[in-house]
């Protein structure tokens, strides 16, 4: 891959993306238009995240890529390989060893630090899109802070279902100003959006970048009498016994047998390595899987 520049993108493009990132950090939650490039992977498969990662990576960085919380899902593997090949950076599966973490749909369980960057892949950056399909209209609604419609949606949820029926991509308000889509993370992860690390959101196909600087105030939209609730499956992880992590449900057989396991594979492995054992777990062995 010597034909390509470090991290694939040419330096001019990276500068353009960095400008968009800086603008995003300066106006938290505001969607900055950027001239997204065609990447060698399909739009909708993380091209926004990849471009943002490429723009912030330096050769000394250690990178981690997760999809659905796991390092070994095929798209995570594919993106990690892309950066190994085009940037030659070291990669890791350990959250705490990573400088840059690119993620799709999850925030790692382990709290991130100030010297880390979390890059999200975003399919539809516009939280108002499914209420108003026109970009020209939604930009105006953001500019004028007209967010009544967003609450109408939540109101309708409650009147129909007795609860807010948004389970992921749960909208948030950033520093009391912009309503933002936190990307399709489960609402369980929403409280973690207030964190020490820099969070960058890249939407390649929709040509938008937005950002949360460290310790930004992020409030999940709700009603006083129907407060936001960060819920998860009411189980413990069957492998490591953790009670507080987000869980994947795995169907074991066709008789209704199932087990619940941590969606964050690194977190689960670390716990098992430290001796925690869940209801169906075996004692941890190095490279067991």
């Amino acid at each position, binding site marked *: 891959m010597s034909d390509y520049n470090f991290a694939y993108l040419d330096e001019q493009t990276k500068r353009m993306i960095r400008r968009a990132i800086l603008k995003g950090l300066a106006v938290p939650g505001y969607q900055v238009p950027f001239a997204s490039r065609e990447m060698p992977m399909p739009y909708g498969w993380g091209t926004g995240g990849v471009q943002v990662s490429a723009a912030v990576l330096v050769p000394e960085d250690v990178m981690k890529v997760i999809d659905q919380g796991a390092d070994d899902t095929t798209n995570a593997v594919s993106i990690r390989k892309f950066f190994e090949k085009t940037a030659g950076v070291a990669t890791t599966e350990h959250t705490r060893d990573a400088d840059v973490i690119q993620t799709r749909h999850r925030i790692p369980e382990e709290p991130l630090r100030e010297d880390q960057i979390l890059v999200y892949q975003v399919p539809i950056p516009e939280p108002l899109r499914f209420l108003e399909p026109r970009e020209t209209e939604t930009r105006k609604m953001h*500019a004028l802070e007209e967010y*009544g419609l967003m*609450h*109408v949606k939540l*109101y*309708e949820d409650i*009147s129909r279902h007795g609860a807010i029926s948004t389970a992921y991509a749960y909208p948030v308000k950033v520093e009391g100003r912009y309503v933002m889509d936190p990307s399709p993370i489960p609402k369980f992860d929403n409280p973690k959006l207030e964190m020490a690390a820099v969070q960058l959101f890249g939407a390649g196909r929709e040509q938008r970048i937005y950002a949360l600087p460290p310790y930004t105030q992020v409030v999940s939209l*709700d009603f006083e009498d129907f407060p936001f609730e960060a819920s998860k499956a009411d189980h413990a992880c069957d492998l490591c016994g953790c009670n507080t992590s987000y869980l994947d449900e795995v169907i074991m057989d066709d008789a209704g047998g199932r087990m619940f396991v941590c969606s964050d594979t690194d977190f689960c492995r670390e716990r098992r390595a430290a001796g925690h054992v869940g209801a169906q777990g075996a004692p941890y062995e190095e490279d067991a899987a």
Partner: protein
Amino acid sequence: MTPLFQVKSLGKYYGSRIGCEDVSFDLYPGEVMGIVGESGSGKSTLLNCLAGHLEPDTGEVLFDTRVGGLRDTVTMSEPERRMLGRTDWAFVYQHARDGLRMGVSAGGNVGERLMAVGARHYGDIRAQAIDWLGRVEIAEDRVDDRPSAFSGGMQQRLQIARNLVTGPRLVFMDEPTGGLDVSVQARLLDLLRGLVREMGLSAIIVTHDLAVVRLLADRLMVMKDGHVVETGLTDQVLDDPQHGYTQLLVSSVLQV
């Protein structure tokens, strides 16, 4: 007494054609002004200019804002004008479809304005929505139904509830009874008259129907070809029209 709303030599042109020209008037708190004229007289253009839906080419549209006193709404920033549009002002469209969200329940329709100005308690919002549905004679058990399931008269009453829930200080109405059956019109007019009196509403009502203004308006403005041809107290204008056009308008009704 400061007027609530003051219009000074307002004009709007479509190319060389006059939409409306040289319109001036004051509206005082609690007053209802009727604007009548046949279609094409410029009354709808005027109303849309007053409400900020159209940008006038000349003149001023002053409103007595809560903090800044009388301010020209034509030159104020769009965010400020839109803020007025969802707080102190309300607009009732002739076609309820234009003023309602057809895919949202009746409760959500009424609640939207409350939420737009910061209401965040579901129970309170719903209670207020139900209260307002009651005031416009829509049964509580319809609160979760969508307006598409409502009759034309009910849709119009829902639109009125949606507009009045935040206690606006000025209501613009564009042919609010147009397109409804006569019996439905009468009921709606009764309801509107009750609300106007009870809430002390200030309103500007555009209509071609003199019965509407006789019942609702304190003062009347008659428009023809984009110009105001006669103004005065409603009874005065209707009982003793001075301008030839007004005489024609009044006599054409009386003959019915």
